[in-house]
């Protein structure tokens, strides 16, 4: 018999809105992601200068994680993220810098972000999490894989809590849905409730 876990809290960032546990924390009419996330960063008083060095995917992930981990004391927390576009937005930037032999100036600061798991590294650094990181790529949000993998990590005691979900940035569109799975919480950790939260928040 597997122990049952709970969803402790969740955060959604999409279409100019940031919400936590269903409550709106920030809204903006900015249509451009960079302006939107910068105004959110300021309004939510995040104060982390490394933020400005990050690519869009990491900025999105960092702000979403910030909403959930601000008052979190548990450091034994694994990260299990997924998305559709991987790091393609930054991949295209790097490709652009090497396409033309005359303008061939690859940037190390861009290249380092051409891996989707970098955003988990940024969150680990920010919150001091020395724990499991796994990044999956799928064509759509797949609650069942996240559910199984999270249960596995908690069941093997590889982590006390798991921060998991979906962090996607592609062609200017952004969608972040992160949730914390723990022993106790508001919702039962099930495929149904993960899907329900993703579809309704």
């Amino acid at each position, binding site marked *: 018999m597997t122990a049952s876990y709970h969803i402790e809290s969740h955060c959604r960032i999409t279409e100019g809105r940031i919400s936590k546990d269903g409550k709106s924390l920030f809204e903006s009419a900015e249509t451009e992601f960079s302006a939107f996330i910068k105004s959110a960063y300021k309004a939510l008083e995040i104060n982390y200068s490394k933020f400005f060095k990050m690519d869009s995917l990491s900025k999105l992930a960092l702000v979403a994680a910030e909403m959930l981990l601000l008052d979190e004391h548990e450091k034994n927390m694994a990260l299990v993220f997924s998305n559709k576009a991987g790091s393609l937005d930054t991949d295209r930037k790097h490709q652009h810098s090497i396409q033309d032999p005359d303008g061939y100036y*690859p940037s190390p600061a861009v290249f380092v972000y051409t891996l989707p*798991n970098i955003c988990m590294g940024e969150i*680990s650094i920010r919150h001091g999490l020395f724990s499991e990181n796994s990044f999956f790529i799928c064509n759509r949000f797949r609650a069942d894989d996240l559910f*199984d993998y999270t249960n596995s990590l908690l069941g093997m005691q590889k982590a006390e809590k798991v921060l998991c979900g979906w962090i996607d940035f592609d062609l200017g569109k952004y969608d972040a849905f992160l949730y914390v799975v723990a022993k106790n919480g508001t919702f039962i950790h099930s495929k149904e409730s993960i899907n329900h939260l993703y579809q309704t928040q």
Partner: protein
Amino acid sequence: MSEVYLSHNTIVSNYGFDSLAAVTNIMQEQSSLQLIEDPSILSKPVCTSRVNTEQLQEAVALLDPREPYTRLEQLLIVSLAKTIQASGLSLNERVGLLISTTKGNIDVLDAKSPFPKERAYLHTLGEKVKTFFGFHHEAMVLSNACVSGVLAIAVAKRFIHQGKYDHVFVVAGDLVTKFILSGFNAFQALSDAPCKPYDKNRVGINIGEVGTSVLVTKDSHALAKESVVLLGEASCNDANHISGPSRTGEGLFRSIGSAMKQAGVSAVDIDCISAHGTATVFNDEMESIAFNRAHLQDAPINSLKGYIGHTLGASGLVETIVGMHSLHQNTLFCSKGFEALGVSQPLNVIHKTTQKPLNTFLKTASGFGGCNTAAIFKKVTSQ
């Protein structure tokens, strides 16, 4: 919990198109690295290991493809076809597919590529491989920098333990591309000579290319003779820097400790270590600190980068497979390129290929984003 095995396996590399080709050459201390001049990938000569294109296309043609496949898809398909065939498994609902890659079909972003740019989406790579073989489930794709290959083995085991699958085929690959070489070159990390992991005269990284696959299964019947049990595995972040390895080896040290705890073994039980050993100063130094903190300084250790280079998302898997064969052959494989210790902490680097009874090995990997993974494997003796 039931045991999970790594069984049938295939390495498609510059050495040839099966694991035996790679293992035989490695046993004879033969490197597959070559200095090449190819301005389409880098404006200066680069030392690398690439799969022979003509032979690869011939191997694909034999599989009767119904559409054109990218180079990486070809590598994965050719490798996986052999592993599936050797396993004798039918691809039903109990069989999963997991793909490990850092950059997938990244070469299609180049203006000269004949393939549509959409092919760069990693899930598309998964769909192509899934459809070619007719897997029942959608492919899972893991993209976790340079630990992907060994982490994928852990992921496969974890899904098996959750009851999702009985068997998972893990296939890993990354290409030597202009995209990758330009980036590592901007990091001042590339070497135009064969790399020398842990050596005091080390010269930097070589990037290599393989397509490699393994069957991860809970079924102890019909295992390959070189099969191993995965005793324990863990992955811990350094929480330090996104590209610079930790000065204290924190994440790797914690990964090894957690994997050992799960495996129920201690440092004296580890017969040898197949380490990451990229041959950069900071990586090698970090590893030496972590291995010493874990009391593993006396365990014979190698890096296989001097044979096939750093194969990125495939490195952890191809090196695990070579490790399986090392146990089976009771042979410690020489750490190619090593002459004199060039890290601050003692390590027992294997300087000559040696026969020795072996039962258990530790595989480690570390990567950008501060990720580290350790896995401990034991020879299957009851065959």
